[in-house]
């Protein structure tokens, strides 16, 4: 048991590094702009309009930010539901990434709400419209954020030595882990459903009844990609050994999900008779950028040797992440044409700076958390068992 208590440990080190300071400055700028937003309203800082009531604060901060947050979802699914114990070392960092992704997505919704002081109405059943996709997404994201807090709580409890509570929590943690897999499946697909109901306003390249499926697939894909990307970056920047055996398997899973996505995309376009739209249809250029990145990212993973090379993993996960980001951006903003127009929208500098600030906050918090809390798995444990990572992980799961 004692050795397992060290399965995760803080990596330590100075907090005030250059990346941390840069991120902090960006966060301060965003906070200043947000003060303006709450002082003078949305119109004072954003380019939102009646034609584009949703700008990047929804499309990027919420829709794409929550996809980044799917790391915890896919890792929990692999590790606990499919009982693949070897992935355990990656669960806690993934859950933390999810916590930031979802927590900040929820905060971004509050920023974007016109009448934010009514936000708690979401939770009051007598205001609910139970057929609303938006209600489903809102409630589900809010609940999932709470679930993530509970899922991540052991790291806090370990750090501050609250053993009794930790042991009690461990007994009921499975409920939250199950919820943590169920909830994202629901709301990530519902994010796609939200754009099904805009109908013809969305370009035929993206508008399909399968939008929920594609959103779920991109959520899973981006979840895997962010885990791989983060792991490669952490090993590079914190000079830690690569988690190669696990990354190899994750890369294989990414390849499968990305291939299913691309194949389904093509079949869907053919079945709907919109295949020709990719040659000159509305926003066809962005379709190509998205598709080339997606196919490029998965093609890199086809040679098995590449799945063990950190550069190939980095490039591939970066491309797949960008493809997923673009897919979601295409559905929510680029492929969207408001009915009575012509409307124009491009985010204002202040809008962009708020989004940058949100992501900077995520990075700053990541840096603080991995240095101060037991998030990343302990290196000596890993290197000692590098020959048999599976046995280590299985033990760690019960720790």
């Amino acid at each position, binding site marked *: 048991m004692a050795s397992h208590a060290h399965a995760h440990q803080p990596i330590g080190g100075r907090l005030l590094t250059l990346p941390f300071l840069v991120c902090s400055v960006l966060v301060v700028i965003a906070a200043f702009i947000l003060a303006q937003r709450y002082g003078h309203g949305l119109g004072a800082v954003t*380019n939102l*309009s*009646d*034609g*584009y009531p949703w700008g990047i604060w929804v499309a990027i901060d919420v829709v794409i930010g929550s996809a980044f947050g799917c790391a915890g979802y896919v890792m929990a699914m692999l590790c606990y539901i499919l009982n693949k114990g070897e992935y355990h070392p990656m669960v806690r960092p993934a859950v933390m990434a999810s916590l930031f992704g979802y927590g900040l997505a929820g905060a971004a919704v509050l920023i974007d709400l016109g009448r934010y002081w009514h936000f708690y109405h979401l939770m009051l059943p007598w205001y609910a419209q139970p057929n609303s996709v938006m209600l489903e997404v809102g409630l589900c994201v809010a609940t999932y954020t709470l679930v993530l807090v509970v899922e991540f709580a052991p790291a806090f409890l370990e750090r501050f030595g609250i053993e009794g509570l930790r042991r009690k929590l461990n007994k009921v943690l499975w409920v939250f882990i199950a919820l943590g897999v169920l909830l994202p499946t629901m709301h990530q697909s519902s994010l796609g459903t939200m754009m099904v109901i805009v109908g013809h306003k969305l370009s035929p390249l993206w508008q399909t009844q399968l939008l929920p499926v594609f959103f779920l697939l991109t959520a899973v894909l981006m979840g895997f990609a962010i885990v791989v990307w983060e792991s*490669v*970056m952490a090993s*590079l920047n914190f000079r830690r050994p*690569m988690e190669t055996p696990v990354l190899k398997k994750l890369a294989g899973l990414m390849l499968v999900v990305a291939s299913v996505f691309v194949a389904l995309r093509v079949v869907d376009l053919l079945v709907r008779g919109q295949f020709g739209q990719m040659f000159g249809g509305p926003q066809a250029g962005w379709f190509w950028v998205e598709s080339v990145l997606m196919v490029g990212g998965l093609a890199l993973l086809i040679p098995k040797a590449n799945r063990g*090379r*950190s*550069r190939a993993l*980095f*490039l591939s996960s*970066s491309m797949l992440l960008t493809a997923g980001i673009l897919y979601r951006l295409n559905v929510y903003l680029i492929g969207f044409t408001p009915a*009575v*127009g*012509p*409307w*124009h*929208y*491009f*985010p*204002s*500098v202040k809008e*962009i*700076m708020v989004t*940058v600030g949100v992501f900077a906050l995520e990075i700053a918090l990541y840096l603080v958390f991995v240095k101060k809390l037991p998030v990343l798995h302990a290196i000596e444990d890993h290197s000692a068992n590098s020959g048999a990572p599976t046995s280590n992980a299985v033990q760690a799961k019960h720790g």
Partner: protein
Amino acid sequence: MPDGHVDLDAEHIGDLDEYEGALAGMSRREFLTYCTGVAATLGLSPAFGVKIANAAVAAPRPTVIWLSGQACTGCTETLLRTNHPTLETLILDTISLDYNETLMTGSGHQAENWKQQAMKANWGKYLMVTDGAVPTKDGGVYCKVAGKTFKEAVLECAKGAAAVISIGSCASWGGWPSTGVNPTGAVGLNEIIKDKPVVTIPGCPPNPYNFLSLVLHFVAFGKLPELDDKMRPKFAYGRLIHENCERRPHFDAGRFALEFGDTGHRQGYCLYKLGCKGPETYANCPSIGFNDVGQGTWPVGTGHPCFGCTEKGVGFTKSIHELASLKSVSPPNSYPAVATDKGEGISAGAAAVVAGIAGAAVGAGAVISSRLGKQDEKSESSSTPAE
């Protein structure tokens, strides 16, 4: 009759009318409701509904003789679209439609006998209705029924008519048969019948309720409603289409559809610039619509400019997309653009920030990937020999 069969085949027109029979399955309440509706159409107080009801069921029902000339039968067809009352209620219960070439069951000598008999029996009392223009060139040979030219038929019938109604643009002034070079010399009925007033219900086809209201007015009061200078009932043709058009606010605001399917057209803007003749055409189309299916069911409502079918000198004369000559307000010479850009587009600053972020991401990606490349080489070379 030219062939002398009139008296042989002539049948007596029986007394088919009774109070009960006249209601034809309608309850008394339904019938009174309908008559009150007719009174409202005529712009009368609801109290007149009872009077109309009494007149409609009073036996015998007024005889109507309907003659068709150079026309497309659209005017008869339009009556089939009525449902308050339906055509059968009208022709079986309200009036006695004794002759109509499209609707009658009989044919040949029988039909012709019936017409003669009905005229004789109701001489001086019957209503004469015509649709279609009267050809005058070459002795009127271009339209003949039962060996008689249409001109002879209308002159004969008009002599004993209590009132003469010409329904449709063709019967009103010649309509489409008179367009262009007018090869048959088609004219309206009022140029043939000079001794009696010819009430006109122009339109192509006219709204059937204008016709029904006119007939019921005659039945109820025994006289014709107030008419304008072109002999059209003022209750239906007293106002310009432009005055009651649901798109009028767009005209006043200078918002026009400039071509079919453009942004303005899709948004229901004014069709004046597509050649709508609403500003010079008198009719109640926007107010009562067609086919009883609710608001907006008339040409302009469906997105096509009015072509002025009720107006002599406009319908079938001006080309469809020719600008109307305005009888009331003229629009200004310049307008705001139909499609005004809305929302904020890209600014230089935003473009710079996005480009900066993208550039930084690509740059950082390149640096990281080169560092990772070196790391890969190191680990691959070190992993070949044993640790």
